């Protein structure tokens, strides 16, 4: 999927090598007006690693993901993706967005475009790749997310789970190095949650670097290489899933886990 003519070379910092963190977040502060939403967050993600971020609503998880692909600016600190400072004013945002794919909680497909058009739009408009090639890739992605036959359906004709899988395919069409998932199953019916999680798991198994914000603890435990727990704008605790879920030391983490498990 990611080889051959489809992926064009994306500019990376020449000093970055794959053994260094692919995402390096260091002491990030972010305020909306007077409210400080991130109060010094640091975390590293290695290439191919799957990081799950859990924590109560309002703790700044979505904001953190949005900062990683520069959808919102930060006030202080540093975020490097493949060695490149994301909040450098001279940053080539397009290059960053090609490297980092993002899937949101809801309403994120273009409702006036069919499933396959949703997938093809960015490669055509943003990367200006030839249509035949883009369409062939889009069809492969539709079958990868198990939606063959739904190519011409509009988002309004698909279930929530199907829409989210199209959204994942749409991000993958840009051949990203990193995928961000922001509570992508939170708005779904229980029956369709599973099919979306299966798709994400397959991606993770193929070696895609993932940052996943989720409330599905079982999923986080099974798929995550590392779990971060955030509360009120700070990372309270983190660790490998086994130790994290069984031996959380901070009382806030334990209170959260006891509520949700």
């Amino acid at each position: 999927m990611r080889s051959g003519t489809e992926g064009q070379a994306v500019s990376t910092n020449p000093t970055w090598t794959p053994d260094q963190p692919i995402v390096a977040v260091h002491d990030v502060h972010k305020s909306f007006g007077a409210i400080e939403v991130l109060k010094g967050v640091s975390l590293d993600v290695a290439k191919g690693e799957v990081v799950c971020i859990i924590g109560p609503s309002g703790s700044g998880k979505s904001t953190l993901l949005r900062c990683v692909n520069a959808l919102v600016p930060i006030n202080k600190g540093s975020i490097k993706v493949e060695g490149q400072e994301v909040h450098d004013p001279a940053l080539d945002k397009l290059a960053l967005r090609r490297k980092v794919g993002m899937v949101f909680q809801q309403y994120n497909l273009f409702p006036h475009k069919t499933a396959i058009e949703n997938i093809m739009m960015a490669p055509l408009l943003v990367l200006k790749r030839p249509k035949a090639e883009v369409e062939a890739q889009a069809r492969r992605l539709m079958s990868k997310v198990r939606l063959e036959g739904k190519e011409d359906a509009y988002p309004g004709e698909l279930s929530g789970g199907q829409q989210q899988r199209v959204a994942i395919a749409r991000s993958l069409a840009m051949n990203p190095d990193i995928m961000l998932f922001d509570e992508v199953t939170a708005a779904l019916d229980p029956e369709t949650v599973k099919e979306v999680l299966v798709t994400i798991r397959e991606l993770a198994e193929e070696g895609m670097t993932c940052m996943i914000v989720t409330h599905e603890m079982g999923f986080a435990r099974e798929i995550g290489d590392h779990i971060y727990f955030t509360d009120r704008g700070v990372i309270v605790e983190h660790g490998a899933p086994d130790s994290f879920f069984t031996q959380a030391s901070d009382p806030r983490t334990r209170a959260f886990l006891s509520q949700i498990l």
Partner: protein
Amino acid sequence: MDALWDLLRHVHDAYGVNLVHFYDGFERGRLLRGMWTTVKLAAICIAFSILIGIVGAWLQTSRLRILKAAVQGYIQFFRNTPPLVQMYFFYFALGPQMPRVINDFGVPQPMFGSFEWAVLSLSFFAGAFNVEIFRSGVEAVQKATVEAADSLGFSRWQIYRYVVLPLAVRICLPALNNNLVNLAKTTTQAYAIAVPETLFVASQIWSDRINVLEMMVTLLTFYLLMVGVFVWAMTRLERRLRVPGFGQ
């Protein structure tokens, strides 16, 4: 055709119903040219006013305060003053200020004639409403949808052109429709600056031929038909743009 004209001539002679503007070749020519002028005027103004609406709503999403303020000023001016006064202002106040150009006969003439001034003033008038209409559509587009396009690397213009505008148009089509019908009817106001559109030629004909009632009925029927065709076309467009599971 000639048989029909003869019949109408007979109706005039026998019953006094004066449809001279149909059966008389000269009057018919005048009337048809007037109608053609109306259709042209309406079509051009509709196109320009939509363009103004699209660009104005785009400028209003700008981060530049001064741009937004300029668009807001434009809207307030054209929405809150009478369109007839606007037209007079363009034609009588701005017109003489414009440079003159030399025509084919080597004679200097105004750069814009009354038709062009009517186009300008009516387009700006309806355009002010269109900006507001498109803006209401733009604001109704889900922020998350825009963010998704942003995260895929779309430029600001691409987001507007390929995501926001197509959705906004679907949302605001009924309001747009309304405003454009109004615009089509307001073209009669060009009478005031002597654009030879339908109302203007009709009044010439009824003064010359003293057939006020027949001319009025013809006039109203023409506008009913013209607006009818337009509404029919817009309804078809609305149906074509309808997307399963969106809006409604």
